[in-house]
């Protein structure tokens, strides 16, 4: 069929057939290659993690995708379409001024007001020197208790927002903590140190927009109460007695206390996993 | 950094994708498919120059002339010899695979005593001992050869006996021998000159006589003609191959040939269709009709058709006297187109199945069909080139195979004139095989050597100065310079054809032979001596349904 192959001769049917065939082959090859090329490009432009987060966000159940303003009770019913990144939310400013209907003090858990909270149960505390301290909030800490092992990122590594910042291992579950903010790792902590990461944010902290996407005040308590509610449902009524004290405060070491629960689901719901 | 499962996953995915764009898989594919085009375990023929040799097929007494294509010293193909006076280029199907017979898995290569293998030395010792102790019977399947002469002389010297397993054509001539005293081997059917042939179950188109002779004749004078010059009337129970092609097929009851012959004779004599004064068959026409299963009128018509265009000859497929008698009625004895005498120098043989005489040992030549088993409790020494399985032989002695031994080819059975040629051996025989003649000469060295006999025969032919030599072109023997030249030509495949001796003879038939239903079985490999068929015969018998595999022979 090809020039050089014995008995080759051009005929109309050859030309039609071959052109069609190669057109198809090229299209298929082209599709794959362009997909591969675009992938490479996304990584090059640091859009990969963003894409992953978007896809994960899309995978999340509706109930997990509530808008912070709904949590704070500023609006009745609103679901987030921005992957929890209020910095690009067009309507943020129109809801933010509204009065919150939820008490600002979190139920029985220590959620200091000096820090901001990410939906993945991490907190961010701006320091004077322009860095931020990042840690695990109390609910998460109580739930996990003492982790079996921890892998932290390298010093000076760049972290993207919502990218896995560090991992905790517990009872064979791997828990990925999402970075609440983008920046460079400048310090590594431990559980006992009370914080896990120190980061130099990529954006200027003085700009209010930089930390806008993080929860604060009434949003936190609204969000927490829903989280507790969910926990209660997922751990099941028979577990609620040992697991949660009155007022629904989880006792430390919840994972050890209730090993038979479907932790896989609980953890991925809690830490915005997939 | 440590390699995690994720890294492995990504890596393998990338590798798989990457490998496709390298030439590695494609080259591999190419090599593999090329390999599939010449698998090492598939034999390929050795290239080499092909030269054509002429010889004769000695696998049965018909001795057809064959053209053998030789490559690298081995026969790679067999074909007929167009200008062969008898076969005229035609051969039986088996001949075309015969060149592979020597490698047949059943080929005998060692001496066997009962089941266990033995040696020539022991065989010779045993045979010598037997000869010393008592008379020997030698059985030959292909009389008239130089080898036969050696065997016969040996038998006489040992005051033993020489018996012959006769081919069906010869057997069909035995009645005339009894009535005329002329040996059956001296007689023949002059079908060349016959106008009407009534075959009583003889497989004329299926290997009868010299296959080529009749096939060619029929093809020229009868095939596809509504009014053929040669009328072939086949009287047979089944629609045999010959019957399908015959001018007329007379379907009769199984084994009623004799009855019909009698019926025909009666009609011929009663209705004065023949001028002959002969005993009338005892059988009435009605009885004949009842026995043969066709109406009296049909018999009458048949009789008239037969005599309609003489000369006519009736041919039986066995020694059925009734059909011979019919020939006498038809006056086809000693007349052109009938039963003719072809030679004065011929002797009558003892048929082997009458081998009841007491013998210490029986020696069976390789030319004897494997089916034949002697009625004796003597020690049996059997020569064969192939092992046909169960046989009564105490000793199984490996004989030369196809084209492995020098042989001479006397007149084909029932052929109307004498012929003679030499089948020179084209293939070197394995050193462990010996012919029966060689074997007996180790016991009795006084016996003449094959070469010598053949030589004297050539001289004899030359001296008589009769007949013609059919080589590339024909030459009367009288024109040949010397007997040596004659022999040389014969060894190259030429055939000597004698003069037809035009002498009539009489058959004294006192009374009509008694009618007995004869169970005829005209097997197409009746006198094919080898117990095996060429492997390629499976095309006929197993890889197609063209033919029944002949009994006792593994195709």
């Amino acid at each position, binding site marked *: 069929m090809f020039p050089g192959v014995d*008995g080759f001769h051009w005929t109309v049917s050859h030309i039609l057939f071959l052109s069609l065939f190669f057109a198809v082959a090229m299209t298929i090859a082209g599709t794959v290659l362009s997909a591969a090329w675009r992938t490479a490009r996304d990584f090059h432009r640091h859009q990969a993690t963003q894409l992953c987060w978007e896809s994960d966000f899309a995978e999340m159940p509706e109930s997990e995708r509530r808008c912070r303003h709904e949590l704070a009770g500023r609006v009745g019913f609103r679901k987030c379409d921005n992957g929890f990144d209020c910095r690009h939310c067009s309507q943020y400013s129109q809801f933010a001024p509204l009065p919150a209907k939820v008490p600002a003090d979190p139920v029985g858990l220590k959620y200091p007001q000096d820090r901001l909270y990410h939906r993945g149960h991490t907190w961010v505390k701006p320091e004077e020197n322009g860095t931020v301290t990042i840690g695990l909030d109390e609910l998460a800490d109580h739930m996990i208790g003492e982790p079996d092992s921890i892998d932290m990122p390298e010093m000076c590594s760049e972290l993207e927002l919502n990218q896995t910042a560090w991992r905790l291992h517990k009872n064979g579950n791997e828990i990925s903590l999402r970075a609440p903010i983008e920046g460079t790792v400048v310090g590594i902590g431990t559980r006992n140190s009370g914080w896990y990461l120190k980061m130099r944010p990529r954006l200027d902290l003085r700009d209010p927009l930089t930390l806008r996407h993080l929860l604060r005040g009434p949003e936190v308590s609204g969000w927490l109460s829903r989280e507790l509610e969910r926990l209660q449902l997922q751990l099941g009524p028979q577990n609620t007695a040992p697991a949660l004290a009155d007022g629904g405060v989880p006792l430390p070491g919840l994972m050890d206390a209730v090993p038979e629960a479907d932790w896989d689901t609980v953890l991925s719901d809690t830490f915005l996993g997939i | 950094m440590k390699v995690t499962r994720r890294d492995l996953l990504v890596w393998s995915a990338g590798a798989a994708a990457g490998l496709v764009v390298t030439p590695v898989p494609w080259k591999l594919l190419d090599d593999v498919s090329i390999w*599939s*085009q*010449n698998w090492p375990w*598939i*034999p*390929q*023929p*050795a*290239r*080499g120059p*092909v030269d054509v040799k002429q010889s004769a097929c000695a696998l049965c007494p018909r001795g057809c002339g064959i053209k053998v294509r030789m*490559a690298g010293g*081995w026969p*790679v*193909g067999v*074909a*007929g010899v167009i200008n062969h006076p008898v076969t005229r*280029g035609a*051969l*039986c*199907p*088996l*001949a*075309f*695979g015969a060149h*592979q017979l020597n*490698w*047949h*898995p059943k080929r005998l290569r060692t001496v066997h005593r009962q089941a266990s293998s033995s040696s020539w030395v022991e065989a010779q010792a045993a045979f010598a001992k037997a000869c010393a102790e008592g008379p020997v019977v030698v059985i030959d399947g292909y009389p008239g050869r130089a080898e036969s002469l050696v065997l016969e002389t040996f038998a006489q010297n040992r005051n033993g006996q020489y018996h012959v397993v006769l081919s069906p054509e010869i057997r069909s001539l035995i009645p005339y021998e009894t009535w005329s005293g002329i040996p059956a081997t001296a007689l023949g059917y002059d079908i060349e000159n016959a106008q009407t042939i009534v075959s009583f179950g003889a497989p004329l*188109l*299926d*290997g009868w006589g010299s*296959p*080529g002779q009749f*096939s*060619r004749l*029929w*093809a020229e004078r009868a*095939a*596809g*003609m*509504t009014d053929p010059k040669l009328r072939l009337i086949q009287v047979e129970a089944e*629609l045999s*191959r*010959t019957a*399908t*092609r015959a001018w007329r097929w007379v379907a009769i009851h199984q084994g009623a040939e004799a009855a019909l012959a009698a019926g025909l004779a009666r009609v011929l004599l009663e209705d004065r269709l023949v001028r002959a004064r002969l005993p009338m068959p005892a059988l009435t026409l009605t009885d004949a009709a009842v026995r043969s299963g066709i109406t009296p009128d049909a018999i009458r018509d048949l009789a008239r058709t037969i005599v309609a265009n003489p000369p006519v000859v009736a041919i039986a497929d066995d020694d059925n006297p009734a059909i011979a008698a019919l020939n006498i009625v038809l006056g086809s004895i000693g007349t052109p187109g009938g039963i003719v005498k072809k030679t004065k120098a011929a002797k009558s043989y003892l048929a082997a199945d009458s081998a009841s005489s007491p013998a210490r040992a029986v020696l069976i030549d390789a030319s004897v069909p494997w089916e034949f088993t002697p009625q004796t409790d003597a020690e049996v020494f059997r020569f064969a080139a192939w092992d046909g399985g169960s046989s009564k032989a105490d000793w199984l002695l490996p004989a030369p195979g196809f084209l492995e031994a020098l042989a001479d080819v006397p007149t084909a059975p029932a052929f109307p004139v004498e012929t003679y040629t030499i089948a020179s051996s084209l293939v070197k025989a394995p050193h462990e095989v010996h012919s029966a003649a060689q074997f007996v000469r180790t016991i009795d060295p006084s016996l003449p050597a094959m070469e010598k006999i053949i030589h004297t025969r050539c001289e004899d032919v030359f001296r008589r100065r009769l007949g013609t030599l059919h080589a590339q072109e024909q030459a009367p023997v009288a024109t040949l310079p010397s007997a040596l030249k004659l022999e040389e030509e014969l060894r190259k495949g030429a055939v000597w054809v004698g003069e037809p001796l035009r002498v009539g003879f009489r058959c004294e038939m006192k009374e009509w032979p008694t009618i007995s239903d004869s169970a005829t079985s005209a097997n197409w490999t009746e006198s094919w001596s080898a117990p095996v068929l060429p*492997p*390629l*015969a*499976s*095309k*006929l018998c*197993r*890889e*197609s*349904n*063209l*033919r029944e595999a002949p009994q006792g022979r593994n195709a």
Partner: protein
Amino acid sequence: MRARYGMVIDLDRCTGCGACMLACAAENNVPAIPQATARTGLTPMLVRKASNGMDGGARREVFIPIMCMHCEHETPCVHVCPQQAVEVDKATGIVMQMPQRCLGCRYCMTACPYHARYFNWWDPSWPAGMEKSLNPGVATRMRGVVEKCNLCHARLHSAKEKAAAAGKREIDPADYIPACVEACPTGAIRLGNLADPADPVTQEAHSPDAFRLLARIGTEPKVYYKSKEAWVRGLAESVSGRGANNNSEVKHV
């Protein structure tokens, strides 16, 4: 000159001896497969039997040698072969099979109305030593490919070589005689150049007794049959369920 080799087979002459089948097999190095049956055997030349369907004395039978008909027009096998392993030789009209290119899909076998194509179901094998008796002119095939009659192309080739050596452009017809033609004891099978009107075979092909099997399918087979008997000529038309044929009578496998 552009030859069109074809055959005329006189069915009145065919005695069904089978010499052509053996000669063909020997010439083309077709193995005798021990396990093969009438359904799986290799018989590029196959003599089949047909009857007029009657019984007793009224029964008539005829033997029909079947080989590749070398169809001239819309050759079914050539059209279907996915990889050009079959082609019609423009110079000779012979339908050539190239076993070494065949992938054994057997599509051509389903396409052939004459069942004249055969598949190598087994590896070809010969008893020890018998490979010495193979015809040097023809290569053996391997398992898993289709083969068929190619009109003893090896013989045509040597005839051409001979002509070329003698400096002639045309081959001497006497040098090109396929094995089956050579073997037929009654001269029933004859080869000729149908493109040459003077060729006796061409003339016979146009005689009133001549016919071709399934001619109405329109593939212009170049193998002609001929018979004086009307019922035999009737076999050309396909009225199925007619004559019972022992040849394709096959056990239920």
